[in-house]
Structures are given as C-alpha cells and as structure tokens.
C-alpha cells in the first residue's frame, strides 16, 4: 500500500494564501513574527508588499486588521491559536466581531499536537472562545484539501471568520473529485447504524481509523466531518442523531465549549440522545512529540475506538 500523503494544514494555509493573492488584489496578510511557522512566509515571498509583519503584538495586529478592513481590504491576521483567540480575544470581540468587520483570523498551532512546546502554546480553548462571538464563523479543516478550500471560502464570506489550523502533518483524506466545501455543511464520510461520530480537524482521520476498528468489533459507526463548528450543520446533526440514537463527538480541543458542546447545545433542545464527548478533558497539555501526546490523551484511532466501544457497550447493559 502506498504511503499516505501527509500535510500540515498550516502549510495548506500558506499555500492557499499565496495562490489567492494572485486572484484577489485586496487580500492582505498580517503576521506577528511567526511567518515561518504560520507559513504566511509563502505569501510573503510572492507578495511582500501585501504581507505586514506586526511584530510580537497580537492585540495590535487584530486592530490593524480591523482598520485595514474598513478600507475594503480583506486581511488574514495570522498567529498561533493561543495568541489569536486567547491573548487577543477581546480585540477580536470588540474591534472585529462587534462591528462585524471583514477580517479573517488564521490561527495555526491549535491543540495539543503543537507537541514539544507544551501547555503554554497548546490552545484547547479557542473554539469555545470564538464561537461565543456573535456573527463569527468558526472553521476547523481536517486536511490539506479542506484547508485550502476553507481559506478561499473564508475570503468569499463577508464577515469575520476564525480558521483553525494544525502544526502536525495529517493524512490527506478529502482528495476525491466529489469533494465540495461549503461553510456550515457537514460531510458524511462513512455510513453506519449504531453510532454517529461527529469529528473535526485532525480528529476526522483518526475517527475514520477508529470506525474501521469498531467495525471489526461489530459496531457500525457513521462518521461525519464537521469542518464548520459555527454555524453548525444542525439539520445533519439532528438527522444523524435520530438515525443512530447514539452520538460521539471528537475534537482536539477541550470537552468544554468546543464541538462537543455545540452538538449538545443542539441535541439537548431538539433531539435528546446520549452523547459522549471525546477531547481534551479539563486539563492542560504537556510537552512531547505530537503523535505520542495524541495517543496519551486518547485522540489517536485506538484511543477513540476504545472510548466509543465502552460508550456503546454501556448503553446496552
């Protein structure tokens, strides 16, 4: 079997920006001294006059992006998720969200797969923070194909968008001719009658792997890629929950406030079913190689499969 192609979605972000820069002259990119890591350096090489390095000052970067957008430019403000959603939360809320400005936030290095840098840089709270801002679109792409499509969709969407990317190279899973990205529309990747797995970001490929393992144990899991956490594809969430009766959410994010909470928000009101939230429990991360951390925190295929098996078994007792 051929080696699975792996690309980090931050690479996809940089490449997409460079490509779109040619197509859209009002697209500008801001960074905060992390261009090499966020990969906006790819855009900078192609369009140095439209790449603005703000230095290590994320709060100011968000304000500058807001000001630029009032003149018709479409800024992509780029830094690590920790600083975009964490440090600059209030600037994003008040200077971008409240006036509903056309600013895109490219947040890389999300989740524990940041790896060796450890807890200070592993943002497991950004989805929760960003989805509370009225009018904010929150997108967490699962692979290279989806990430590139998401960047263009974000450009074309009028209003603020939060894009979440990872540092770790992840398998390309959406490389097929039928793939179509639409903001707010989930994608069914595998059918199954016993349980629905709603996964997002790099947990999508791990969830597909888990579904394969579950099938061997006689559990047929439906797998849905929720790349847009806000607005959530409520129709698909409700329909699938009613079909399978059991729901699991999987994300590289705190179980508090992320995809799991968003799904529960909908289901508790409109289609109450049992939900198991898989993600980072209420703890900080730690240093270590990304793959080891994902395994340690139960977010690899084996970990996800084991938790789902236990969850499903618990229901029939």
């Amino acid at each position: 079997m051929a080696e699975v192609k792996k690309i980090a979605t931050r690479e996809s972000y940089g490449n997409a920006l460079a490509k779109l820069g040619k197509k859209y002259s009002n697209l500008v990119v801001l960074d905060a001294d992390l261009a090499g890591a966020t990969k906006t350096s790819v855009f900078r090489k192609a369009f140095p006059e439209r790449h603005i390095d703000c230095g290590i000052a994320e709060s100011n970067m968000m304000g500058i992006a807001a000001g630029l957008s009032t003149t018709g430019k479409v800024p992509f403000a780029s830094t690590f998720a920790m600083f975009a959603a964490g440090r600059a939360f209030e600037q994003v809320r008040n200077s971008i969200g409240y006036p509903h400005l056309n600013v895109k936030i490219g947040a890389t290095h999300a989740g524990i797969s940041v790896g060796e840098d450890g807890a200070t840089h592993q943002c497991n709270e950004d989805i929760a923070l960003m989805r509370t801002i009225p009018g904010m679109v929150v997108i967490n792409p699962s692979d290279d194909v989806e990430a590139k499509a998401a960047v263009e969709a974000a450009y074309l969407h009028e209003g603020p968008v939060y894009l979440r990317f990872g540092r770790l190279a992840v398998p390309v899973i959406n490389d097929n001719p039928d793939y179509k990205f639409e903001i707010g529309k989930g994608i069914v990747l595998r059918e199954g009658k016993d349980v629905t797995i709603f996964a997002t970001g790099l947990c999508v490929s791990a969830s597909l792997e888990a579904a394969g393992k579950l099938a061997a144990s006689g559990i047929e899991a439906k797998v849905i890629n929720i790349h847009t956490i806000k607005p959530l594809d409520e129709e698909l969430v409700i329909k699938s929950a009613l079909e399978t009766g059991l729901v699991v959410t999987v994300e590289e994010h705190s179980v508090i406030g992320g995809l799991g909470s968003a799904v529960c928000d909908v289901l508790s009101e409109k289609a109450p079913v049992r939900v198991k939230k898989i993600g980072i429990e209420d703890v900080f991360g730690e240093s270590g190689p990304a793959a080891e951390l994902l395994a340690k925190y139960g977010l690899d295929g084996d970990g996800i499969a084991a938790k789902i098996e236990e969850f499903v078994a618990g229901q029939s007792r």
Partner: protein
Amino acid sequence: MNKLELQRTANEVRKGIIEAVHAARAGHPGGSLSAADLFTYLYFEEMNIDPENPKMEDRDRFVLSKGHTAPGLYAALAIRGYFPKEDLKTLRHTGSYLQGHPDMKHIPGVDMSSGSLGQGISAAVGMALAGKMDKKNYRVYTLLGDGEIEEGQVWEAAMFAGHRKLDNLVVIVDNNGLQIDGPVDEVCSPYPIGDKFAAFNFHVISVADGNNFDQLKAAFDEARQTKGKPTAIVMKTVKGKGVSYMENNVDWHGKAPNDAEYAIAMEELEKAGEALWQK
C-alpha cells in the same frame, strides 16, 4: 471657519453634550467637554469629510479611541449634519442608534466602533497603513485619553506607526489630567507623554491649551507639514471645560447632571454663547 465661528460651534457642541448626557441619565461629560474644541476643530475645519456621504471613499478618518466620550463626538457629528440634533437626547436609550460607545454599524459618520480602551488607535493605524498601501492622500486622526495610554496596546500601535513612518496619522492625547480613580499622575503616571511618543519615532507637538483654537490650528498645520513620521499632539485641556462645577473635578468623569445641575450647566453655556454672538 474662523476662530469666532469655531468657538460658537464648540459652545453648541458643549450644549449637545449636556443635553445628551442629561437625557441619558448616564455618560461621560468630563472628557467630552475637555475634547469639545478638538471635535469641533476636526469636524468643522481640519478634516476632508462630507456629511451627505459619510462613507466617501477617500475621506479623512477619525477614530475616537477614548470611546466613552462619545457624547462629544455625537454632538459634533449632529451639528455638522450627519444626523438630527434632536436625536442626541436618545443617547444610551434602549433601541436608540446612539450607543453608549461609538458604533460604526449604526451611526452615520462614525468610522470605527471603539470604547474598549487602547483598541481604537490600532484600528486608526490600520486605516493609515491602508492609505499608504493604496497611495491615497487621506489622513487619519485618533483621540486618546491620558488615562487610556496606560493600556499596553497603545504602545504596540505607536511602535508600529513609528516603524512604518505613517505620516498620514495624527494621534491626539487629551491630557485633562484626570482618570476615574483620580489624577493620572497619582493613579499610574503616564508622564512624560511626549517623550514616550518621541521614543516611538513620532513627531511630537505639545499644545499648552487644547481648548484654544489658535493653538489647535498651529498644531494641526504643523502635523500636516510633517513628513516621514506620524505626529502625536499632546494637548493640555481642562476636564469638564465650559461647565463651572465640572471643571477639573474627577467626579464628573462618568456621571450625568440631575435636573438642577442640568439647568445650571445650560444657563452657563447659554450665557457663554450669547457673549460669543455679541463679539
């Protein structure tokens, strides 16, 4: 406008501030009054704007970074013709478009939503940067409080503006000397203000009396002539200027006059207006 016309207009702006804050039963008269002459100078003399076309593409822009003094901005905008003066009395009322802090989505003439201190200057810097990138001639003005500059983001923005040599940007600091908890030099001194901006590669202009139109004119003319650097105008003002009992009194930072106090304030401003019309 000549100086006398500016003075008469500023007096009308002050009346608008008192009307609005009194009707709202809340708001920030002190810092609105200290900057009333500045608002007047910008909107009636300095800026290239069109009240008939608030979003005119190449207009000059103003960001009220010290957004709590919205009553001063709104009064100037109303008198300049952006919206009806009577609407000032709806300030802060439920359902009114005149929000407690500037709201660009709903208020004609407001170029940026602001009010969370330290954030407006960054947006102004972004606008000035866009002007440079697009080779436009418009200028960008932003007003900060002397307490507001205690916010770290102000200096992130200043560093960037100096680094990028944004000579289309004018940062004005309303140095009325008072913040909510007391005199600025007792709470957490921002002094020396001018030296700080100079250190961030600004051309600094000190205005001894920011409630004097001759001095404001000289400062803004000098700013316009300044090339290769952003300008910071640090203007000494009197908080509460124009209403005797509010002047230099920190209690009037964020409090509305009651009916009796309102009557005294309006009487003083009417008298000041009459004196200006007799000139």
